């Protein structure tokens, strides 16, 4: 077993086992049965392997995977929250270009190691964000003609 607390492996493999069992259950109970012949085959192997992995985790015999340590989790959490809000809400509700501009700037602010106290840092961040958005607009709106959801400011 790695240094990682066994609980993390148990939770992850338990979640996968739950998905595997659910998939197997649906495959064997849903109609029309003919449409689920191949899924049954897959789901059986899926569930068996998932249960095997879960049992190994319960017994503390998991050999691979270093898990997520506390420091990594604290580091990634703000970025992850911003990413989720961006992908699942802001892109559609605010419009792609508005949401991307805001997200890009927030991520730079959160993870750029340059000091927040210097005006130069902020100017650089604004310029990088503007430059990136200009490239994205040029590529997707002008070159590829991708019609994105209506912008909140338009």
């Amino acid at each position, binding site marked *: 077993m790695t240094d990682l607390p066994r609980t993390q492996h148990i939770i992850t493999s338990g979640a*996968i086992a739950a998905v595997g069992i659910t998939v197997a259950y649906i495959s064997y109970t849903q109609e029309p049965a003919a*449409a689920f012949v191949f*899924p049954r085959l*897959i789901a059986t192997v899926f569930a068996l392997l998932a249960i095997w992995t879960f049992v190994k985790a319960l017994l503390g015999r998991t050999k691979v*995977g270093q898990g997520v340590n506390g420091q990594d989790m604290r*580091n990634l959490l703000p970025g992850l929250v911003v*990413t989720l809000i961006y992908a699942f809400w802001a892109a559609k509700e605010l419009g792609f270009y508005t949401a991307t501009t805001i997200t890009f700037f927030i991520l730079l602010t959160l993870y750029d190691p340059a000091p927040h106290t210097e005006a130069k840092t902020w100017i650089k961040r604004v310029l990088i964000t503007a430059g*990136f958005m200009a490239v994205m607009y040029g590529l997707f709106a002008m070159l590829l003609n*991708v019609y994105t959801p209506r912008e909140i400011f338009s």
Partner: protein
Amino acid sequence: MEFLYYMGDVFTPINFGLLLLGTIGGLILGATPGLSPTMTVALMIPFTFKLEPQQGLILLGAAYTSTVAGGAVSAILLKIPGAPANIATTLDGHTMAQKGEGAKALQISFIASAIGGLFGVFLLIFLTPVLATWALAFGPSELFWLAILGVTVIGTLDSSSVVKGLLSGCIGLWLATIGFDDIMGAQRFIFHSSVSGGINVIPALIGLFAIPQVIAMFAKGRSNVDAEIIVVQRHPIGAAFREVFSRKRALAIGTAVGSIIGLIPGVGGQIAGLVAYDQSKKMSPESAKFGTGHPEGVIAAESANNAMVGPSLVPLLTLSIPGSPTAAVLLGGLLIHGIFPGPALFTQYPEVVWPFINSMLVGQILMCVFGLLIAGWAANVARVPRAVMAAVVLGLAVFGSYSVGHSMGDVYVMAALGLAMYFLERFGFSAAPLVLGLILGPIAEANFMQGAMIANATIGQMAYFFTGWLNWLLILIVLASIGYSIWMELLQRRYTTKEDAQA
């Protein structure tokens, strides 16, 4: 020699321009630590939608070739491999750079890459049509086993745990069944409206390969790439060519090892580089110099990882079985243009496939030329803060996924799969078998159902799928790959235990 007939297509202004763009862009992106070739090619697929299939594939092929070679820049100058394929390059390349031979190391790495790459593409040119003719003998049962073979080989050889590799493959196969069943039209596993039409492969690829890298960059917190960039001194190119050709043994070993490993689905460039490095060291009279900045180490590793690129496409173009994760992404690129690789590819779409292969041949030479020109400068991309890279990749992932079908559902699928994959990777699961399952799932199911119908009308299900030498050969390879991986895992565990005991 059919390929020569289509050679002119590579040099049309648009095609050659795309080849240049893919090559130079690939070199720069490959030199960027954190951007793998697979992720780069996945993010480029949406840009090929507006292009003709031939043009799109030329762009993707050029990016594939040059990102692998570009990875040597950061491996040599920063000791950070640009891609897993460049791990072996750091062993001698970075030491050479520390000794003031950075330019020489870069030059010999690009020359060796080009020579290995050219050999690999020639193998692709001459082996593919032969194998394609042979593959015409494959019926539904053989194609079903072949798809299963693709998933299990990558699942077992590309993963640190056999069970978790196979489980990843199963998750991919299950994801491929989501949506409406092709024959009955029945709904299967539609738990959210975003997946009612099934899981679109391109957003899934982008999510599975790009988002985990974005989150990994977040996990490093507020920091720059933690490496000192070594200043590159001038070095005559002629001397670098003489150096490479005077080390014929390392070049031959690297090229041969890379080509053979490339042909085996799932093994990949990382293994090719390391095995070639190890074999060159063992066979060299100067083996003691390896690890101390010996040019043979760089030549063997770089010729191997680029020699692997061409052969890794042989199983893809003939049997629809991608030889590497990047080849799997290329398969996604082919599918979105309505091209289904397989034995008939060379008869149905010669005007697409031959210019694509030829472009990889020309691309190797361009990669060498531009690599030599921009190598020192490309290392500066490592100065780009992680925060900028993460934000850029995230933006491209969201726009790229949306542009596939102008659907927010694709963005949700991309983000959800990417987020799940990050955590799964932290627990020993791997994206490659999952992607293979997702891509090969429909092929496996279609052939399984077709085979089942034939079987019911003739000799019965069990007999149909387990009769004939080809079926048994494929089944044996599936079992052998699983058995070999379990044996290797047990062996590794025993050595680890012994080392632990000694410690």
